[in-house]
C-alpha cells in the first residue's frame, strides 16, 4: 500500500499539453452528444448486442444471488409481511369482484351507446438481461431489439405498472431508462380529479410530481397514470400512487419494481392496435334479460326518400356487430382486462 516504496518515473513527458488537448476533445464529445449524435448510441447498442449471449448466461446465477442478498433484510419481518399480504389479498379479491361487475356493466353501456371500446395495445415480451445502477443513470437491458419491433420511446411495463421507456434500441437488445432516473420526465394524470402533472425522476425511489396547476391539492393515495399527452406514451398506463403534501412536495410511489421484474412488456403505441372481440347477440342487455331480440328495422317506404336521408338513422343494437356464432359469455369468470395489454 505504501506508494513510497515504488520507484516512480519522473515527469519527463510534460503531460500538460496532451491533457489540455484531450480535455478539449472530451468537452467536444459532450457537446456533440448533447446534439443527439447517434454514433455513440450505436456503439453502445452494438456492444450490448454483442455481449447479450454472455449476459443471458451470466444473469441466472448472479440474479439469484442478487435477489438473495437483497432479501436478507426481509427475513426478519416475514411473519408481518405474510399477514399484510393476506389482508391485501382479501381486499383485492373484493376489488376484483367489483371490477368484473363494472366491466360487464361498462360493456353493456358501450353497446347501448355504440361507443368504441378502448382497444388493447400491441406489445412485445422481453426478458431483463441486465440492470445498471450508475450514479447518474438507472437503466436495464432487455433481450428484445429492433428485430422484434422495439423502438426508442416505447413504454416498458410489468404486471404491476410502468417501469420506464426504451431509450436505445439495438438489433437484439434495448436499454430502458427507468422512471426513477434523473433523465425521465413523462406527462401523467392524477385520479380522481384528472389533475395533470409532469413526473420527473431524480434517482431516488419515488419520482417527483411537478403539477401543471399550482391550485391543485392532491390527496395521498391518489392514482397516477400516464396521460398520453404528446403522443409518446399510451394513456392510462398504471404508474403509482401519490405521497407527500403540498408543502414538502408530492412524490409517486411506483407500483412496479424494476429490481424484481424479470419479464416485461414493451408497449407499441404506434403499431396498429388489436381489435377488440365483437360483442355477441347473447351479450345484449335484452337477450341477457331473457327478452326476445329487438325486431330488425323495417324497410323505409320508398315514397319518402328525402325525409329518410335527412334524418339520422338509428339502427337497433342487433344490427351492430358482425356477430360470430353465439356462445355463452365467459367474461364474468375472467379477471378484469386492462387497457395495457399486459395480461
Amino acid at each position, binding site marked *: 500500500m505504501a506508494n513510497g516504496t515504488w520507484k*516512480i518515473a519522473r515527469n519527463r513527458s510534460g503531460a500538460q499539453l496532451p491533457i489540455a488537448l484531450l480535455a478539449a476533445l472530451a468537452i467536444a464529445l459532450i457537446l456533440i452528444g448533447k446534439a443527439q449524435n447517434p454514433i455513440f448510441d450505436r456503439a453502445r447498442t452494438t456492444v450490448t448486442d454483442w455481449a447479450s449471449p454472455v449476459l443471458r448466461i451470466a444473469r441466472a446465477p448472479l440474479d439469484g444471488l442478487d*435477489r438473495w442478498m437483497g432479501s436478507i433484510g426481509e427475513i426478519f419481518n416475514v411473519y408481518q409481511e405474510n399477514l399484510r399480504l393476506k389482508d391485501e389479498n382479501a381486499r383485492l379479491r373484493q376489488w376484483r369482484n367489483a371490477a368484473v361487475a363494472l366491466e360487464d356493466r361498462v360493456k353493456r353501456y358501450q353497446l347501448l351507446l355504440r361507443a368504441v371500446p378502448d382497444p388493447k395495445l400491441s406489445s412485445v415480451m422481453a426478458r431483463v438481461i441486465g440492470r445498471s*445502477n450508475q450514479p*447518474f443513470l438507472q437503466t436495464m437491458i432487455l433481450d428484445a431489439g429492433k428485430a422484434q419491433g422495439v423502438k426508442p420511446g416505447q413504454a416498458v411495463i410489468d404486471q404491476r405498472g410502468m417501469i420506464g421507456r426504451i431509450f436505445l434500441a439495438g438489433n437484439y437488445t434495448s436499454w430502458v431508462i427507468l422512471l426513477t432516473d434523473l433523465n425521465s420526465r413523462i406527462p401523467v394524470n392524477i385520479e380522481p380529479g384528472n389533475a395533470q402533472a409532469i413526473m420527473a425522476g431524480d434517482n431516488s425511489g419515488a419520482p417527483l410530481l411537478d403539477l401543471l396547476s399550482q391550485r391543485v391539492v392532491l390527496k395521498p393515495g391518489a392514482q397516477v397514470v400516464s396521460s398520453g399527452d404528446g403522443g409518446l406514451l399510451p394513456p392510462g398506463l398504471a404508474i403509482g400512487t401519490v405521497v407527500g403534501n403540498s408543502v414538502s412536495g408530492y412524490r409517486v410511489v411506483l407500483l412496479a419494481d424494476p429490481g424484481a421484474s424479470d419479464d416485461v412488456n414493451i408497449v407499441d403505441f404506434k403499431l396498429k392496435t388489436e381489435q377488440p372481440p365483437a360483442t355477441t347477440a347473447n351479450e345484449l342487455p335484452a337477450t341477457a334479460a331473457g327478452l326476445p331480440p329487438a325486431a330488425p328495422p323495417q324497410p323505409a317506404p320508398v315514397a319518402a326518400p328525402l325525409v329518410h336521408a335527412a334524418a339520422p338513422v338509428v339502427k337497433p343494437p342487433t344490427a351492430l356487430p358482425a356477430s360470430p356464432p353465439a356462445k355463452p359469455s365467459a367474461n364474468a369468470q375472467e379477471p378484469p382486462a386492462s387497457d395495457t395489454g399486459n395480461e
Partner: protein
Amino acid sequence: MEHAVNIMAGRFLSSIVPVTFGILGVVIANFPVSLLGGLVPPALLVFMPLYFWAMVRPDLMTPFWAFVLGILQDLLSGGPAGVWAAAFLAAYFLIDRQRDMLAGLSGVGAVAGFAVASLTACLTAYATVAIYYWHLPPAAPMLLQLAMTVLLYIPGVILLGFVHRRLVGPYRSDF
C-alpha cells in the same frame, strides 16, 4: 537473438498490462448485474489502475489512455459521452502535478491520496452531468460510489502492486 526477442516481448507485455487492467476494471464495474441488490453503485474500478500507473509509470498510463478508458466507461455505463473522459483527465492532471507527493505517501496516507484523486474525478463528473442536464443530480449515489471505490482500493492496490512488481517493473531508465 532469442534473448532480444524475449526482452522485446517482455517490454510489450509490461506496456499493455496497465491499460489491460483499466479495460478489465471498466468491464467488471459496468457488468449490468449487481451483487448488492442495486443498493450501492458499482465501484469505479477503472480508476485504480489508472491512478496507480499514472503515478508510478506515467509512460505506460498516458493522458491518452486515461481518455480512452474514460470513453469506455461512458460507453458501458450508459451515460453521456465524454463525461468520465473529462473526469479522468482532471484527475490525471492532479496526479501529474502532485506525483512526487502522492507517490511518497504510505499506509492510510496512500489511501487518502487515492481518495482525493477519486474525489476530483467524481466531482468533475458530477459537475459535468449537472451542466449537461442543467439539473443537480443527487449527490448520495456518487458519494456511495466514491466510498466503495476507496474501500476497494485497499485490496486493489495490493493486487496492482504485485502485478507491477512481477510484470511491469520500474521505468527502464531507472535501472
